[in-house]
């Protein structure tokens, strides 16, 4: 990830800080590896001290003593509040509606926040075979809100997904309201360039803030559709010194995920 030397922080670091602030109200958070993991740990140390970290490997209330290298790292087990069977985790915690926020990402996202983590190209003979759903499909349906963290590019912010692994908004808010799911779909997207919300009237992604130094043209050049822009388009607040210290000294001292 390229650094932005004149600003004193990397693109990953502003993605982490901007996402962590979005967790102020969160209590039970489904965590992924990489950036989401650092985001959740940062939020726990700043805006959301009571945040419970939940991992699909069956861990509720993890207190990782080191940066977990995968969602099944042994450091997640030691010192956790509970370790459940995977059935219980998905059935009693996720499907029953206990998870109020989860992070998802993918190789492709469309303007309604639908995600593809399955294939690029044709399913039967894919150009690129991606990992598939894992827990993403049911997380997208049941977590009360979904935060997406993804790097932005023409090939990932697409007009049409090659495959819809995890449902987002349908484009028809009346349909979405009648779904009866415990989840309300993606509520924000944080990229290396900008942050987005979703328009309540249409369910469509809407540009909310540009990261410092990023021009609207750069955002347009890195997505496959003409973005809806919030009337009150602002600038993403940069990471604070304290956020940067926590990321660099405590959460990812090796710079594994934040370079």
């Amino acid at each position, binding site marked *: 990830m390229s650094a932005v030397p004149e600003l004193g922080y990397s693109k990953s670091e502003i993605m982490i800080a901007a996402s962590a602030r979005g967790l102020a109200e969160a209590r039970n958070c489904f965590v992924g*590896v*990489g950036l989401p993991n650092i985001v959740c740990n940062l939020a726990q140390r700043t805006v959301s001290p009571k945040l419970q970290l939940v991992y*699909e*490997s*069956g*861990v509720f209330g993890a207190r990782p003593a080191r940066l977990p*290298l*995968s*969602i*099944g*790292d*042994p450091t*997640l*087990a*030691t*010192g956790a509040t509970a*370790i*459940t*069977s*995977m*059935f219980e985790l*998905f*059935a009693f915690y*996720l*499907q029953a509606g206990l998870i109020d926020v989860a992070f998802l990402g993918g190789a492709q996202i469309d303007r309604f926040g639908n995600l593809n983590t*399955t294939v690029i190209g044709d*399913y039967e*003979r*894919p*150009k*690129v*075979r*991606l*990992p*598939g*759903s*894992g*827990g*993403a*499909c*049911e997380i997208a*349906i*049941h977590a009360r809100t979904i935060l997406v963290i993804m790097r932005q590019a023409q090939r990932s912010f697409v007009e049409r997904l090659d*495959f*819809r*692994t*995890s*449902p987002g908004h*349908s484009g028809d808010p009346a349909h979405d309201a009648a*779904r*009866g*799911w415990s989840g309300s779909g993606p509520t924000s997207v944080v990229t290396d360039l900008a942050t987005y919300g979703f328009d309540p009237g249409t369910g469509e992604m809407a540009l909310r803030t540009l990261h410092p130094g990023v021009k609207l043209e750069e955002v347009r050049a890195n997505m496959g559709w003409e973005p809806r822009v919030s009337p009150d388009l602002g600038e993403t607040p940069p990471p604070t010194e304290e956020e940067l210290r926590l990321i660099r000294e405590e959460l990812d001292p090796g710079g594994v995920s934040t370079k």
Partner: protein
Amino acid sequence: MTERKVTTMHDAVAELVRDGDTVAIEGFTHLICFAAGHEIVRQRKRDLTLARMTPDVIYDQMVAGGVARKLIFSWLGNPGVGSLHAIRRRIEDHDPGPLEIEEYSHFGMVCRYVAGASNLPFFPIRSYYESDIPKVNPKIVPMRSPYEDGTEVYVVPPLVPDVAIVHVQRADAAGDAQIWGLLGCQKEAAFAAKRVIVVCEELVDGSVIRRDPNRTAIPGVVVDAVVHEPLACHPSFAQGYYDRDNAFYLEWDRIARDPETLEAWMREWIYDLGSHRDYVEKRGEASWASLRPGVALSGEVDYGSYA
């Protein structure tokens, strides 16, 4: 009192894994029995259907070893690293031949095992709505609740492996097996399968198991063979015994990317070795010492004595 089930990995695999079988070597990042996968490759089993929630590096190795006809899975990647290149070559380029796949989500796979273990014809879940997954897997079927609410659910079929191979921290000679840390689907896969091989870090007396019955995941009554094979999960981990060898997971990306490098690795670390003992020796004591975690004992509980 108990029949003697303790055997070697060689004999367990030779006797219980048959060509054409559906084999589940479970373990969610934790307790993945790589040594069993290597033995299956060494014995050149063929036409297996390999089931696992996360095929992981172990199934990349087994696919590279030519044992598999088909994969059943829910997340196909090298966790925390990236891709499984031997499997991707089979799917994307049919190199050296096509590989049949049948995919689910994690919850779907978990519930397939639960249905198999519970002798149910299907299991209903609230997932797959408005996803393309059921379009490419006709075994995932929408269904209405027969009760008043008429809620739409999707059902998945039971998964009944011919053989489940599950690694555990400790077991006794009867196969009573205890796990701590991440539980994965070890229990569900074992109860679902027709034949079960339990592989353990420590083979203990039955009294050790009976001192802490809440920790028993799998009772010997469903177990056919017990193999005492310490360090059998490398590069995966066994909570409290050895850490995940993340350097190996990273290294596998480089190895598997190039078919010739991969073939050389398979020769050096599987075909040219006689058993997992050789693998342990070849890696050397220093490499094992570097993976040993510190100590974090659980507190004891009092079950009470009611004699």
